[in-house]
């Protein structure tokens, strides 16, 4: 009876929509002001697209601006806007629009459809370097290295030396030639004329150095990249991972304090906070939980690698982490995808789950020391059901 009363009186009030009392109450903050330069540029593109309906060139410019905005801000709404613009031309796709549609497909991890679009673009314009570059990148993610090499070669033929260097450098890195990869990427860096090229190459040089075990060198590359003074989600994530691996969580907390809006960076921030047992960790873990749940509701599966890491490191749910990491690995096969699969398999004591990752290491000869060590550990797991080949 008393228990019953306890239940009765502690019933939580249902969360309900509210009616603000004050007209001046702020109910939402927009990404930017109408007067900001990027907002004005977008608006100008929108206006010219509206004035010339059916003009593939203005539409492509607007769609591309949306795509860039999505990347810069990590905000997928702009991908939807871009897609809606491109869709109006479904019957009469120009080369530009085909490339953009391919980019939008790859963003959603519809790699096969993206490849179809890039192939269609190249059929019309075989010298379209961007289509080769994107195709190379998709093949790298899919671990189809021979195909990727062909795309790199096509870039070289088009005299895109920096692009070619980045492309072939990554193929080398993923296929057991880390030292050559380092040299290739450095040569590309020497040729690079623009800051965004330099930033990307420096970031990858940081990763390659860390795989080689040269931590001081890796840190120097990351710091050079950061010194360029551009916000870049990939760089921040890679640098934060480097710091976490080297047990420097305090620096991660400082680095990412203002990046809560970005879920991958929030994940790393929450990891650092929970290592340091900071009180803010709880709220951040909850926020990530809510965001994963919201994505699931709409059937979005593009972030399974991050979710696997979240379940593994912050929720300590190794069984779910293995499932997510294995599902992700079917789509994406880069070292970070491999690593989360191996770590999850180890935590779940499930050597079988790690088998595809071991096979990847076997066939590529990838030299990342830490990942090779993890793979070896999965073989020591009892029961040893698999023998190394």
């Amino acid at each position, binding site marked *: 009876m008393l228990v019953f009363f306890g239940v009765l009186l502690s019933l939580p009030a249902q969360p309900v929509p*509210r009616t603000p009392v004050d007209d001046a109450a702020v109910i939402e903050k927009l990404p930017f002001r109408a007067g900001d330069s990027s907002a004005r540029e977008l608006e100008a593109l929108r206006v010219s697209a509206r004035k010339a309906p059916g003009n593939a060139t203005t539409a492509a410019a607007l769609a591309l601006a949306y795509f860039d905005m999505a990347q810069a801000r990590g905000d997928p709404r702009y991908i939807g806007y871009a897609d809606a613009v491109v869709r109006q031309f479904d019957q009469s796709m120009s080369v530009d629009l085909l490339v953009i549609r391919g980019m939008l497909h790859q963003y959603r991890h519809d790699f096969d459809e993206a490849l179809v679009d890039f192939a269609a673009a190249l059929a019309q314009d075989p010298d379209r370097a961007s289509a080769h570059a994107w195709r190379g990148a998709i093949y790298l993610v899919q671990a189809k290295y021979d195909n990727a090499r062909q795309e790199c070669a096509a870039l070289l033929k088009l005299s895109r030396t920096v692009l070619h260097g980045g492309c072939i450098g990554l193929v080398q890195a993923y296929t057991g030639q880390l030292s050559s990869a380092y040299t290739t990427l450095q040569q590309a860096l020497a040729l690079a004329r623009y800051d965004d090229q330099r930033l990307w190459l420096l970031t990858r040089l940081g990763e390659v150095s860390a795989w080689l075990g040269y931590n001081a060198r890796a840190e120097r590359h990351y710091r050079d990249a950061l010194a360029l003074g551009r916000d870049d989600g990939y760089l921040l994530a890679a640098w934060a991972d480097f710091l976490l691996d080297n047990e420097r969580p305090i620096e991660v907390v400082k680095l990412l304090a203002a990046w809560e809006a970005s879920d991958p*960076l929030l994940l790393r921030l929450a990891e650092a906070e929970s290592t340091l047992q900071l009180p803010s960790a709880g709220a951040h873990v909850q926020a990530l939980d809510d965001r994963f749940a919201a994505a699931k509701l709409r059937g*979005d599966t593009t972030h399974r690698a991050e979710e696997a890491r979240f379940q593994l490191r912050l929720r300590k749910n190794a069984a779910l982490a293995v499932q997510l990491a294995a599902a992700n690995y079917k789509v994406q096969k880069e070292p970070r995808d491999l690593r989360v699969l191996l770590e999850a398999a180890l935590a779940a004591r499930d050597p079988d789950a790690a088998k595809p990752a071991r096979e990847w290491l076997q066939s590529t000869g990838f030299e990342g020391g830490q990942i090779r060590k993890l793979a070896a550990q999965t073989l020591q797991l009892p029961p040893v059901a698999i023998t190394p080949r």
Partner: protein
Amino acid sequence: MRRFVILWVLLLCQMTAWAHKASDSYLVIDVKGNAVTAQWDIALRDIDFALGLDRDGNAEITWGELRARQSDLSAWALSRLAITRSGGCPLQMTSLQVDEHTDGGYAVLHLVGVCPGATGPLSLQYRLLFDLDSLHRGLLRLTLDGTTHTTVISPASDLLQLGAAQKSRWAQFKQYLNEGVWHIWIGFDHILFLLSLLLPAVLVLKMRRWQGVNSFGLAFREVLRVVTSFTVAHSITLSLAALGLVSLPSRLVESAIALSVVLAAANNLWPGVEHRRWLVAFGFGLIHGFGFASVLAELGLPADALALSLLGFNAGVEVGQLAIVAGFLPVAFLLRNTRLYLRWVFVLGSWLTMLLALIWLLERALDLKLMTA
């Protein structure tokens, strides 16, 4: 030329891709016969993108800025949602509120509508934002005559067709059975009434002092009498009310239910009726039946399976009730001679019940709000 390098870089920035969330709206619709009620949560950012809300251009949307565009918002949203049941069901917005989801502020549109027909299949077409944002999704929860469907609406599948009465008789019976069980479990006033009558079932009053009864059989027979008469009584009125033969104002019914709990609990503290508790159970059971009927009215009874659903709901109430009794009786019987039961559970429990029911009585009779629970 630079563009290509940027692109190249960006593919490998995949991981930042879902930093925020793609656009979703949350649409909850309830269709009962020809009556449609709905709540539609639409992100303020999306409304701003489609209609432009930020009048002063300071990157902040205020409640006033949203309210100023209320009629535009309603016209825009409602032109992109169509519900039909034997013809179009015109919708209108009755009120506007705001709420928060994981990715920011949302406008909450409360909608009502009336369909030409009260039976038959229903179709829904949703096209909100699809012309502007092809990644937008409508997360729909639609309850059609008591059966809930959830689905994600996308540009590729923007039309939803639901056949009514597709369910088997057995499924329908089971659904109402479950509803019956559920509603007795969350109907605290019914449970408290029943428990107030059952608490003394394992006791007997001797020389003005309560003691445990001697045999389980005695207690069991008392419980059986009370529960059976409560059941028979509320089944009668539930059926009469559900079939529309008798109807009482709900405020009167709810107040009388609260009063019945007060009296039942008071009877434990100052025993008046001791041997004829089953009569009390029967008398007030008639009132509680009207209370169940109002729940059933909210659920809606399908016209084509009226008797079956009514039977299912009634049976559900009984099953839920029996589960409570089955949990209560053995424990109460074991503890009947302990101080815990006599002093705390019986006396304090009756006091608390009486006080709580008194609050309900005041709330319901005077239409006040005294508690949040």
